[in-house]
């Protein structure tokens, strides 16, 4: 093993939305930072435009990692059957692995969570069998950091339209995208129902911003890297800033194995395998874990020692529990005229009235139209369920209707279950010999009820907008996670029911922080990246002020 000299004050594991922000803020604040990332550069050249191997449709592979060297074990909650999965297989819960993480290839919907998203338990009560809880912080604690993320990452939106939120302190730095033809149709439907609409805020440049050009409205946004670098994430903002400071070293191809601790529980540093497969140990005063909700939990659980037999931060058997993502009930509407005007990125119209206050269900979701869908995704996921799967009729349907179908969908806030969890598989290891995760359990049944309610609202909206036929798959109980994975190291005041404190510091380990969606107590009824970043800014400030 190589024991590197320790020029670093902080090690950040994972260069995604959260890790990138934390590295940037700390490096600019004068800290010497080591940023470890198991993947590499995610740009057009590396991620390509394969319509069958991308972050939106991973039929045979992924375009943004991780590689096949990173298996996981998935346990079907119904049958108990365990299968070892490659990163592109159903159930793996893949998220991009590389510089920028998911933000290099995402859709960039830049929503803030709703104030009640932080107070789910006190708003609705805790259903039997659920671990639903309030966050230890509220919307007001995060608002200034949301604003900072919107400015520094670059978000296009209309603050005055965000009627479901308290007034913003500052406008978005860029005007929103224009309303598309599809959006105009959906707005007519919403008007007829009396539902207010919003143009979804996107972290995509509608004008030159941050030294990068305006969006060219291409058709390969979500799931792919931006061809002109106008889609904003940590890869083209905070990580370059970290590197430009001269105080951050970014090491790619670095696979973290374990955290090293002393007898008292103080974190000494991180052991990882470098790109050449050499085991390296690096020390620092502070370690931040930001590998995503599944890999962060894995690293903590794999850091067993005599003093910490269950792993780091896991004295109360909480690490890895409450895994959640978002249910995405989706209604597809077929219209009698072309709806899509050929322009990206796509989401043009949202409704936020069903985030909370829905009779008989807990929480809810924002609903919106979707990103541009490739022809093969339309074939696989949006075609009329009554259509034959081969023959002239199927071909004619695609030709006639590709531009006439649209989706309405929304990220349903999940009701967490303590049994939806990440543990360590006792048998399977990856190519470095590190035990892999075992994903098991399912969300709480209340999630399915809320998702069913939201599917009905999506159908209602498409009907009011004039769809001639509408279909969608009724939600059923399953394990969630995926690109919106969260919850496995949740924040809380009480170590018995949480993993980190209100500043995302692991209980019992003063110099260990979590900087990704793991800390979300609940995951909001919105896309989560802006909340991950807002928390990361807040955590970085806390580290700056305390170390």
């Amino acid at each position, binding site marked *: 093993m190589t024991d590197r000299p320790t020029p670093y004050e902080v090690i950040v594991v994972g260069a995604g939305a959260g890790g990138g922000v934390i590295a940037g803020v700390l490096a600019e604040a004068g800290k010497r930072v080591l940023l470890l990332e198991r993947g590499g550069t995610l740009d057009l050249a590396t991620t390509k435009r394969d319509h069958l191997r991308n972050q939106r449709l991973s039929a045979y592979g992924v375009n943004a990692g991780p590689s096949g060297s990173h298996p996981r074990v998935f346990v079907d909650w119904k049958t108990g059957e365990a299968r070892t999965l490659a990163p592109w297989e159903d159930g793996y819960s893949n998220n991009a692995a590389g510089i920028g993480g998911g933000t290099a290839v995402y859709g960039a919907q830049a929503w803030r969570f709703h104030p009640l998203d932080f107070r789910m338990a006190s708003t609705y009560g805790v259903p039997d069998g659920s671990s639903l809880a309030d966050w230890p912080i509220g919307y007001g604690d995060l608002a200034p950091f949301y604003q900072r993320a919107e400015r520094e990452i670059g978000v296009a939106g209309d603050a005055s339209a965000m009627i479901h939120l308290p007034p913003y302190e500052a406008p978005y730095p860029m005007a929103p995208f224009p309303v598309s033809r599809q959006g105009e149709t959906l707005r007519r439907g919403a008007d007829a129902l009396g539902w207010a609409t919003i143009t979804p805020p996107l972290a995509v440049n509608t004008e030159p911003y941050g030294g990068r050009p305006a969006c060219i409205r291409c058709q390969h946004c979500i799931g792919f890297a931006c061809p*002109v670098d106008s889609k904003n994430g940590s890869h083209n903002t905070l990580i370059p800033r970290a590197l430009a400071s001269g105080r951050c070293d970014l090491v790619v191809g670095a696979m973290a194995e374990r955290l090293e601790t002393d007898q008292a529980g103080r974190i000494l540093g991180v052991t990882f395998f470098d790109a050449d497969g050499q085991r390296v140990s690096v020390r620092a005063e502070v370690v931040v874990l930001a590998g995503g909700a599944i890999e962060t939990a894995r690293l903590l659980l794999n850091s067993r020692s005599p003093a910490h037999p269950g792993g780091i931060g896991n004295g109360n058997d909480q690490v890895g529990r409450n895994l959640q993502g978002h249910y995405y009930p989706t209604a597809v509407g077929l219209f009698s005229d072309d709806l899509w005007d*050929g322009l990206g990125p796509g989401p043009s119209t949202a409704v936020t009235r069903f985030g909370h206050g829905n009779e008989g269900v807990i929480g809810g979701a924002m609903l919106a139209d979707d990103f541009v869908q490739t022809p*093969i995704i339309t074939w696989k996921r949006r075609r009329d369920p009554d259509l034959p*799967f*081969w*023959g*002239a009729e199927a071909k004619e349907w695609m030709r006639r209707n*590709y*531009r006439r179908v649209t989706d309405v969908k929304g990220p349903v806030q999940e009701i967490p279950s303590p049994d939806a969890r990440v543990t360590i598989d006792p048998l399977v290891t990856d190519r470095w010999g590190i035990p892999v995760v075992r994903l098991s359990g399912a969300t709480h049944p209340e999630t399915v009820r809320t998702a069913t309610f939201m599917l009905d609202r999506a159908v209602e909206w498409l009907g009011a907008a004039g769809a001639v036929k509408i279909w969608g798959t009724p939600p059923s109980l399953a394990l969630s996670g995926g690109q919106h994975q969260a919850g496995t190291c949740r924040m809380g005041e009480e170590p018995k029911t949480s993993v980190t404190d209100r500043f995302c510091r692991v209980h019992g380990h003063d110099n260990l922080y979590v900087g990704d969606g793991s800390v979300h107590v609940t995951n909001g009824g919105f896309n989560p990246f802006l909340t991950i970043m807002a928390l990361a800014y807040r955590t970085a400030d806390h580290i700056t002020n305390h170390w």
Partner: protein
Amino acid sequence: MSDSEVLSQISKQSSSRSTVLAPQQIVCLSAVLDRIIPPDSESAGGSTGGALTYILRHLEEGGNLAPFRSVYPVFLDALEADGFAALLPADQDKMLGGQERSPDPAARRFFRSLAEHAQEGYYTSPANWSGVGFEVTG
């Protein structure tokens, strides 16, 4: 075009080279693909519109469809035993309909997979994008 003409054309096309399927099997597959995605006055069918190229390429080692490489020849030989490629389109459809509704679940599953492979090849082929209205501008 006669079978021998089709065979000679296939052997000339580099995109039709296969280490998995024999030329006669490729002729049969072409006929199947043209019933799954029939050619018409506006656009190509499966055999010339990308589905054949995709399936042949991805049956090779490391391809998307490599796990199916032993099943394709068996399926195509069975069809060809009944002279599939020489049948009229309506009769070909009847035979494929028999596969779709076969009492053998494995046969039904394979036909469904094959049809999906055809659609994957066809709708990921850029030549067919503007035909459905997917225009790439950047």
